């Protein structure tokens, strides 16, 4: 059920609509939804186009609706952002990866950055003149991010960084990165972390694409060898990185929880079943009805979050609830799809139904069940944060990082 706009919201919506109609192409050309080709050139072209649209938005005053006017934002509320997003959904435009990267780093800079950092970085960030990647995860620091080892040593010449990051989305396209380093291994793991702002064009940084199970290349490994970072590029001071990282992760979790809710596909599957003459199969009918119902439920949970945000309240449904349900219903949906395809499910690419869309969807389930935090970690979160169940004992919280088995020293 839709909450109705207030009078002010309706006026804002009309203004947005009018601007979009004047400046955005209508759905049909299709670039906003066709951007995931698996060649480096296609990916670069897609990234450039997203950047250009963010620049257009910024110049017209829509690029950062909820951020302060002092840095080129609009100073509006979350309701205005939602209205803008709802209206923009009818047009063939997207900022792709960029708006989510802005949503992660901008609040961290605003909350913890020095005045000089805000002055230097915020405007180019919001206009996408400089794009940013997140350098957090490492091979041995996945679910347990605070186990990170990438070393950052501060001397009179500034920071020197050595180590490796993993799962860095779009690192090959970005000019800047926000980086977590281990700056002090002699204190407990959460206390010895610093948050650095790094120019990705600095010598000593090597970016290697890391193809995933589908062959897609969203992710990268990033290697740092004696990389120099100016001393002043630390946010919240040396050793103060963990609270900044937590703020980023909180925004990431909300964004993951709400960005994929309109999880369509069930109706396409019904049509596919009809086209293939299989819709009379009672097993498939049950499975497809179940899939459709679950999609509706996800959509309604998204509506609840939207409505609470519109009312200026905290999200009404926990982000992890939506994330887990989304990830697992997506997995179930691809199982149904492959059952529906029967023997043809063995095919891929040009020889497969819809160029292998559902096979790809099946393989890509891990973007939901692992990416953005495993479903296991999110279930812990629901249990502890929402239901108030006790945490497990954590042997790693009190000891110096250096002493931990699996820490930097072994």
């Amino acid at each position, binding site marked *: *059920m839709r909450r109705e706009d207030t009078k002010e919201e309706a006026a804002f919506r009309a203004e947005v609509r009018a601007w979009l109609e004047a400046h955005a192409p209508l759905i049909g050309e299709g670039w906003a939804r066709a951007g995931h080709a698996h060649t480096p050139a296609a990916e670069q072209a897609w990234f450039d186009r997203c950047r250009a649209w963010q620049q257009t938005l910024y110049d017209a005053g829509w690029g950062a609706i909820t951020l302060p006017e002092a840095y080129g934002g609009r100073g509006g509320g979350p309701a205005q952002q939602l209205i803008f997003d709802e209206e923009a959904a009818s047009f063939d435009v997207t900022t792709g990866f960029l708006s989510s990267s802005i949503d992660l780093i901008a609040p961290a800079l605003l909350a913890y950055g020095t005045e000089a950092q805000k002055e230097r970085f915020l405007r180019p960030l919001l206009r996408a003149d400089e794009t940013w990647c997140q350098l957090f995860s490492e091979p041995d620091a996945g679910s347990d991010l605070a186990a990170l080892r990438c070393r950052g040593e501060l001397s009179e010449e500034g920071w020197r960084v050595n180590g490796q990051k993993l799962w860095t989305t779009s690192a090959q396209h970005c000019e800047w990165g926000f980086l977590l380093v281990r700056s002090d291994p002699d204190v407990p793991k959460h206390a010895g972390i610093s948050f650095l702002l790094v120019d990705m064009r600095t010598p000593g940084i090597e970016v290697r694409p890391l193809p995933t199970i589908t062959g897609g290349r969203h992710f990268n490994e990033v290697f740092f060898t004696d990389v120099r970072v100016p001393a002043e590029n630390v946010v919240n001071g040396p050793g103060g990185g963990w609270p900044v990282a937590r703020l980023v992760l909180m925004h990431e979790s909300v964004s993951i929880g709400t960005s994929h809710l309109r999880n369509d596909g069930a*109706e396409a599957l*019904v*049509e596919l079943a*009809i086209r293939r003459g299989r*819709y009379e199969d*009672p097993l498939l*009918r*049950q499975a*497809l*009805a*179940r899939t*459709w*119902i*679950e999609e*509706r*439920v996800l959509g*309604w*949970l998204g*509506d*609840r979050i939207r*409505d609470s945000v519109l009312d200026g309240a905290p999200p*009404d*449904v926990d982000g992890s*609830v939506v994330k*887990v*349900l989304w990830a697992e219903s997506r997995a179930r949906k691809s199982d149904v799809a492959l059952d529906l395809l029967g023997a043809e499910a063995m095919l891929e690419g040009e020889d497969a139904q819809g160029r292998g869309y559902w096979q790809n969807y099946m393989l890509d389930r891990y973007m939901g069940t692992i990416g953005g935090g495993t479903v*296991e970690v999110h*279930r*812990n979160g*629901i*249990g*502890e944060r*929402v*239901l*108030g*169940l*006790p*945490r*497990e*004992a954590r042997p790693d919280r009190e000891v110096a990082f250096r002493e931990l088995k699996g820490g930097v020293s072994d």
Partner: protein
Amino acid sequence: MSFSLSEEQQEFQATLRRFFAAAAPSAEIRRLMETDRGHDPAVWRTLTEELGLPGVAIPEACGGQGFSLEALCLAAEETGRALAPSPFFGSAILAGCVVAQAAPAEGHALLSAIAGGEVVALALAERDFDLDGLALQVVERSGDEASLTGTKRFVVDGSSAQRLVVVAPVAGGIDLFEVQASAAGVERRTLQTLDRTRKLADVHFRGAPARRLARDARPGVERGLAEANLALCAESVGGFGRVIESAIAYARERRQFGRAIGSFQAVKHKLADLWILFEGARTATREAVLAQVADLADAAVLVHAARAYVADAYVQAAFDNIQVHGGVGFTWEMDAHLYLRRAQGAARLLGDAGYHREQVARWLGARAA
């Protein structure tokens, strides 16, 4: 259901919760579930006279409170939460909604009686709860007088009802009749039920005299049943809420191996999954209720969607609650099994989850074709 309630709704909810906490403790539920009637007439009188419960959604013109379906569902949520022994579901919801939707004018007296606390039962199912394939025989007498022959099964509160509302197949459709439970040719038998807190009966008609309430009543009966299905969802959400609270509380308190069992992932993740189901179940119920109230085009399919989702979810929750409780959970003395029995019974009343999903599939197919 019970999120974003108005202040008035919150007060109504709190009043009912207090009432049932006092009037329906476990020992009383267990005493009444072993009786044929299944409820205490004195308590029902109080619920009627002091809280106006049976008339909550019946028009003021018929002596009810004239509140909306939302209020009815809110009340059902509380009776489901408390496993309150009462003819509320059978009389006010099932019979009440069907009569109000299918025969609002002719059923005026009947609605007034329901609002006044008379127990009226809906005789609907034969082999199952599908409106297609009914086989009851109707012999027309004169005007709206007829006589009925055949058997209706699983009639909620059928044994304690004073009057029966009968869904009868006639050439070209469905008519709705009223029958006095005490009439000649009516024989009732209380069934032994898995869910002992909801009383079902078989009703045999052998030329029983009946008065027609409505002709061509199928659309109205369907609307009434849609409302009853929603109230059943709400009732299940209420039980689900009770069950998950119980499991969470136990997981926090119960210690084994030097730790609260809720700190073990096997328990924590099971409860997290139940919480996801709970969010889904109450959201689906609420959205389907709002769609029904707003008379949206897809309201009917959303009712089926909610029922299928909630039926499965509640059964899962009732099972898992016992598993989390371990040994003590499957004792007779603990109420957990009463909720499991209710969940299993509710999952099949008015059609099981598979039936409701099939209705969704039909609608999806028709729309796509």
